[in-house]
């Protein structure tokens, strides 16, 4: 049987992977097995109006309501709710110390504006002088982001943008405002964030994989916290699309350092124990962010999704979840980038496809170790439930609590 694919993106790393597998390109109205779709296409396909029903041998690369995770405001809401629920259940996970969650404090304090404006002001007054970062919820690649360090600035901004009052619900675009991580880990004085790829093949039971070849994205300009430089986003934001515009951008390496090299540097300069703890905390953060939405996601068996996780590490080696992208960039800025992304797609396909290579929703979604390639298993609740001594048990609460104490 020839496998047919359909796509509305024009990314060579994607297409060349399909071609390598000998798949045949067809249009959206033909009988396709595999749809690599943009978010919009996917949304309209799943909408009630379209009336499209997928059959057993079809697969698509997004979950219908991925925005629960990928929209900045939704992510925050879901994580806050998840914590509250755990607390209500009396779960030891939701333990607090001085008001802060001990184990679930992995996103910076965040409010949605305009809705939470009063809450934000209250918090702002409580913590005193501090820097906050404003991001429009619906935009990506660093557009519309700015930093503020005075309440008056926020008020001024809200006046300038036609919306004269934050408390009205007439504002079209909402923002999230987060406490700025002003003590990021620096390497040779430069700030960076991590881009990790997480593949989810099912939310209930949760099955997720982490791609080993993540990378760090560096700012081209030295970090400093001086107020004068608060408007120079080249210092503060790591988005490649933004850094590319800077004079210092280098197109050979594109400001990207492999995560293996980061690990080498950290282990050599900071020690093994703290570095291992950092990476374990990153895994912890990813798993719980996914768990926070696992009951809200429409767990369609035709779907899988690869998320781009943006994480910032502070100088105490604590990781912070900044945001999750449902369609991480597949453009290649450098030669290595191309190899990495080609491999990402290749490994992704081999994880989501059954051994036969033909999409099939009846498959139990348990890829062999070989099929996982550069992915490592983060969590598989089904395997864990069977009480197999598999790697997924590592995420166990008991284990976690033991290590924390």
């Amino acid at each position: 049987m020839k496998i047919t694919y359909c796509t509305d993106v024009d990314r060579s790393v994607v297409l060349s992977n399909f071609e390598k597998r000998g798949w045949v390109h067809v249009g959206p109205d033909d009988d396709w097995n595999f749809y690599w779709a943009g978010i919009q296409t996917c949304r309209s396909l799943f909408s009630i109006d379209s009336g499209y029903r997928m059959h057993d041998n079809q697969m698509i690369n997004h979950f219908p309501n991925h925005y629960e995770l990928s929209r900045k405001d939704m992510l925050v809401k879901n994580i806050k709710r998840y914590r509250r629920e755990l607390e209500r259940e009396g779960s030891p996970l939701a333990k607090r110390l001085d008001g802060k969650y001990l184990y679930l404090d992995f996103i910076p304090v965040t409010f949605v504006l305009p809705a939470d404006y009063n809450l934000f002001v209250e918090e702002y007054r409580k913590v005193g002088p501090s820097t906050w970062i404003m991001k429009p919820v619906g935009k990506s690649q660093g557009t519309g982001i700015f930093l503020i360090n005075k309440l008056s600035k926020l008020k001024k901004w809200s006046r300038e943008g036609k919306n004269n009052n934050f408390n009205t619900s007439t504002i079209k675009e909402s923002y999230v405002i987060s406490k700025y991580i002003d003590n990021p880990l620096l390497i040779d004085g430069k700030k960076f964030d991590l881009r990790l790829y997480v593949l989810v093949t099912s939310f209930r039971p949760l099955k997720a994989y982490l791609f080993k070849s993540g990378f760090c994205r560096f700012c081209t300009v030295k970090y400093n916290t001086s107020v004068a430089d608060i408007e120079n986003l080249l210092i503060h934001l790591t988005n490649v699309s933004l850094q590319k515009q800077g004079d210092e951008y280098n197109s050979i390496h594109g400001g990207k350092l492999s995560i293996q090299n980061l690990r080498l540097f950290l282990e050599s300069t900071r020690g093994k124990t703290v570095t291992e703890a950092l990476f374990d905390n990153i895994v912890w953060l990813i798993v719980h962010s996914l768990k926070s939405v696992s009951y809200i996601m429409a767990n369609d068996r035709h779907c899988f999704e690869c998320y781009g996780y943006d994480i910032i590490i502070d100088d105490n080696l604590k990781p912070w979840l900044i945001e999750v992208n449902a369609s991480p960039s597949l453009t290649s800025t450098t030669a290595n980038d191309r190899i990495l992304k080609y491999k990402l797609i290749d490994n992704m396909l081999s994880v989501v496809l059954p051994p036969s290579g033909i999409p099939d929703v009846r498959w139990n979604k348990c890829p062999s170790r070989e099929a996982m390639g550069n992915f490592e298993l983060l969590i598989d609740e089904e395997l864990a439930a069977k009480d197999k001594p598999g790697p997924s048990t590592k995420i166990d609460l008991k284990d976690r609590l033991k290590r924390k104490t």
Partner: protein
Amino acid sequence: MEELKDKSLHLTAEKLAEELQKMDIYNEFYEDLQMLAASQDVSIDDFKKTLVQAVNIGSMETNLRNAVFHWLRSHGNNKQIVVRDEITSRESLDYLRKAQITWERRIQKSLESMCEEIGINLSCLRSSADRDEMLQKWNELSTYNTSLERLRPVYAPKDFLEVLFSLHNPNYRMISDDMIWDFTYLPLKVKTLPELRHHYRDLATADLLLGLTCCQCLTTLSCGSTSQGEQERIALGEKVLQHQHAPVCQEFLKLGAPRSLRGKLWAQILGSSVKTSEQHYSELKQRVLHFDMLIDKLITKDVQLTACNDDQYFVFEDVLHQIMLCFTRDTDVLSVFNNSTSHPILTSLKGKPPIEAIYPPNGIIPFHGFTMYAAPVCYLFNDPVPLYYTFRAFYLRYWFRLHVISSHPQSILGLCILFQRLLQRHETKIWSHFMSHNIHPIRVVFKWIMKGFSGHLLPEQLLNLWDMVIAYDSLEVLPLLAVAILSFRKDNLLQVNTLQNVDSVLVDLSSLNVMSLLQLALKGPIKM
């Protein structure tokens, strides 16, 4: 007999005491001794005995032992069998010495003509505006603006290789000029594979070698936590470091370093951690700020051309600029000329009367890629000071041999010959394949050897390799690895028949595991 032995012991002790006074640690050591003498542990009544006792108990004895160890290493460095006079003790082969002198003259001329072309002086005082700018940008020198456009590296590895090819042994009659590249006409003795096996026996026979399994896992999820063997190695390594005995550290390193201990182990073995280094480093900085030299531009250009464009090292560009500039001002580096054939360039400085001065102050003219000797060390230290001194110690002990013409077995010539012998004897198929297509094997690997593989392997693998250089105190591991790599890629190499295609088979070495390749080469499955 006993008496003689006593006497020689006495002489050695005297010599050592004399040498000790010249060393970096002497002041520190002397102060410590004064403190100790004034402490309660030492009584005035039995001064000598109690003082010796106190020295034995504290860390002073360890320091002293380490000092002797480092002294021995740096002086045993260049033992030649026949010592006739001072000059020949450095180089016994006349024609090599002459070739080195000619090469140095060429470099000097090239520098001078570059100055003329661009219209600048070899060195001059830095203008105060420039000094201020530099000082302000000291921690972000990559943004320090200096015009480098018309500058080119003085020479590249392949230029140096041509120089080596042009060496001529007057005692040897060439049958044909075709074979000029295989260096058989040079009477340098190199180790055979069995001899290498003996030298690297710990590496060859080790069951547990750190760095053998190249675990790419990010987390402890899929590969489980650290293996028990590795944990034991780390615990042992910590214990070894506690005792601070350099020779013990060296012994420990023979089976590889845990990442978290590597920096400390290297510094200990190379003797690069000195208390006064902070102050010395800031003196070097002052010297950089004070004078503006052509060499600064050259070194800046080199950092830009190499590390800044390298996806493994670009994050360290600023600190590299800094330490490489300091390096050019470091007159302690001149000690390499005590036991090497080469001489620093002398230029006459303007003034009355004109005086001859060594140029640049450290005597080293960087070639294209010189920065790569320092770049990998950046992974080990967050602070530029220990980073600088470890890089410097490494250079002073090993790297300087890779860009001079000398008959020392560890020199670039010796290593090239070792490579060729190994390849010819143990990878005959590759050798004859290259022969039949007129490919010079040394051209394939020269850049690897000259840069100690820096920039060609992943940092992790490179550090594993450099561990072996320090631990076995020899650069012979470089040609050994070069042969092992060719051997490993044999099937692909045999299918191509131009140098260009050979290079493309070998351009990406990122999948290689150094330790297992070395073990493979030493254990002997290199077949005929």
